[in-house]
């Protein structure tokens, strides 16, 4: 553990100083393994938040009945040590030199690997248009809220539970009409990355196919409800 940054009340970014780590690709994840004194081990996957070339960072949301995330969000301190395995993934990755427009669709902490792609685009000076459709429960739950505005990526928020007073953006779950408003037209042949809960990912991917997207354009990563 090198340093810690609070993102929202339930989410922290941990910058790691990992021995023997090789550089990663945007979209990849790593596994954290914690070992208790009695030898009991718990292992969870976390998306890598940093762009390639930046100090390695993961962003972790605290799940109340989780075995690993409460430790990583509330307990861990600079200088603590734990095992990581990775980088992992050769499918849900964006290299930065693909010419197609890129549509990123995030549900909650599913924004983490997608933000790594947006950061890489900014660092590499890539010219492919990139648009992020980001569904959160409330404005307070939006991870990287300020930073996302600085990356040169179009960001469209939708807030599904508690939009703030005066909110004039989307305030509902992602549906076909919202996708039609926000997504690139199918004629542009975009690359799509969808990350969130299984239900979120299936709804977004199915909706995009109904818009005329080829399923092969859509890369998905689902995460589970244990942490």
């Amino acid at each position, binding site marked *: 553990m090198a340093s810690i940054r609070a993102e929202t009340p339930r989410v922290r970014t941990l910058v790691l100083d990992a021995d023997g780590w090789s550089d990663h690709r945007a979209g990849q*994840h*790593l*596994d954290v393994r914690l070992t208790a004194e009695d030898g009991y081990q718990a*292992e969870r*996957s976390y998306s890598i938040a940093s762009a390639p070339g930046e100090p390695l960072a993961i962003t972790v949301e605290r799940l109340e009945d989780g075995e690993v995330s409460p430790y990583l969000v509330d307990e861990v301190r600079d200088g603590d040590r734990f095992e990581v*395995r*990775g980088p*992992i*993934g*050769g*499918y*849900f990755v964006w290299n930065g030199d693909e010419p197609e427009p890129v549509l990123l669709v995030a549900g909650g902490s599913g924004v983490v690997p997608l933000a790594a792609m947006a950061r890489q685009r900014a660092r590499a000076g890539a010219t492919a248009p990139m648009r992020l459709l980001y569904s959160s429960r409330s404005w307070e739950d939006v991870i990287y809220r300020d930073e996302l505005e600085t990356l040169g990526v179009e960001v469209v928020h939708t807030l599904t539970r508690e939009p703030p007073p005066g909110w004039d953006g989307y305030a509902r779950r992602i549906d076909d009409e919202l996708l039609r408003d926000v997504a690139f037209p199918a004629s542009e042949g975009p690359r799509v990355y969808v990350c969130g809960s*299984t239900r979120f990912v299936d709804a977004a991917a199915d909706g995009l196919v109904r818009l005329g997207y080829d399923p092969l354009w859509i*890369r*998905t*990563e*689902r*995460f*589970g*409800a*244990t942490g």
Partner: protein
Amino acid sequence: METRVLDGNAVGGLLLELFGVELTAAPCVCSGCGAREQLACLDVYLDCPGVVVRCRHCSDVMIAIVRGPERTWIDLRGTRGLEL
């Protein structure tokens, strides 16, 4: 217990440790129906005794992995081919 369906991304780390190669982008062919999908696109169940990877099309078991304290047992009968 609610069964959690994830996808093959979730077993990338386990397979990397067991086989020493990145496999989430590797196309796998289902022995049951012949469908060919990248591992990341297969359904993964983590709450079984062990890990079960199923075909997204016919739901046949393609890979089952059970880890014990001393060794790991891997059943690949449901995978007819794996391209690296």
